[in-house]
């Protein structure tokens, strides 16, 4: 059985010009990058475009990756800035992805296909819809912490937050998700 190459080894090979190493990095992180891009841009087509741009940017700047943080931490920062650039094209006034003035889009006022008819057992679909209705920052912090199991330290590094801020943000995001789910007539 072929040994699984570490990120560091793949990165070194890619920098040395080996195309297969680039391909392996894409395969390894395509879901990670795509999921985060989708959390930010909220649209699958745009998320594909953003995710592709992220990989191209990551490859361009790969020699600058010093390995001081995890590769995913570095990749997250690229996803964040690429998504922000993409969203700014659509909304030039956009400054931040943390929309505190309007943190959630409740399905009954903005989403025509509100999931009122969700079945109780369709937990994942409900959760995904709920997360899609959160602000990009809220959706991302929940994804990073609970889905990708990044530690709070890593999240602080990724999102440039203090420990207290990260905890508060996570707590708020959870509460808002709960609010959204309840408005969709769904409770965990």
């Amino acid at each position, binding site marked *: 059985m072929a040994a699984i190459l570490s990120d560091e080894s793949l990165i070194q090979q890619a920098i040395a010009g080996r195309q297969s190493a680039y391909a392996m990095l894409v395969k390894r992180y395509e879901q990670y990058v795509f999921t985060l891009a989708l959390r930010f841009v909220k649209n699958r087509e745009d998320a*594909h475009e953003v995710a592709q741009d992220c990989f191209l940017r990551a490859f361009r700047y790969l020699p600058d990756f010093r390995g001081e943080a995890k590769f995913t931490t570095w990749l997250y920062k690229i996803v964040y800035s690429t998504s922000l650039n993409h969203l700014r094209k659509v909304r030039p006034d956009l400054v931040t992805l943390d929309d505190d003035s309007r943190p959630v889009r*409740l399905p009954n006022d903005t989403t025509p296909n509100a999931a009122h008819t969700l079945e109780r057992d369709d937990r*994942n679909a409900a959760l995904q819809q709920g997360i899609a209705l959160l602000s990009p920052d809220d959706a991302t912090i929940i994804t990073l912490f*609970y889905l990708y199991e990044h530690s709070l330290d890593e999240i602080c590094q990724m999102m440039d937050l203090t420990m207290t801020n990260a905890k508060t943000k996570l707590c708020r995001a959870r509460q808002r998700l709960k*609010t959204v789910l309840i408005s969709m007539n769904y409770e965990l």
Partner: protein
Amino acid sequence: MNDEIPKDQHPKTKDSLPKTFIMKNNSLFSDDLLWDYADGFLDAAEHQRVTEGLRDQPEAQSRLADILAEKKSFAALPLEIPKPDFADRVMVAWAMEQMHAQSALSPEKGRDWMVLIISGVFGLSLLLPLVMLLVALSNGVAPTLLADYTLPNVPSVDWAGILGHPAVYYSVGLALTFFSLRLLDKYLQQKKTLQLA
């Protein structure tokens, strides 16, 4: 923390309201504390204190069980999967970007050499008369005599002899072969790019 959610967005059901449990030592057992406990944010001493406190609090235990279930459902969320050909598309885009970068570099490099050669020849043509003048002066030719200086006759060139030389035929043939191969290479590269795209 709950104040952050606008009132009209607050959950209306009894279960979803934040709960607080009083521990034996009168400290609060809030939802936030239980979440911090479940998420592993408490330090060892605090964690121990909550663990001990939970033993006598069946209601808090049940709330903690709910929180753990909720946490589990977050972790069980399926990852978003991009289109099956996503990785291939990225690789094609990357290959094209690299090719463009290379092709953008190489002609420029060629042009650089051309510019250097042309500048060199131009510079020499300007310097040469000056050098010749200095040499003439150093040989004792007075500047006033320069007007009488006669240029040597330009030697006649036997063009027919030169063009008829086998070395010229050979060089022209070699150059033509080289440029044909270069053209073919460009064509094949272009074709490969289009196929990949």
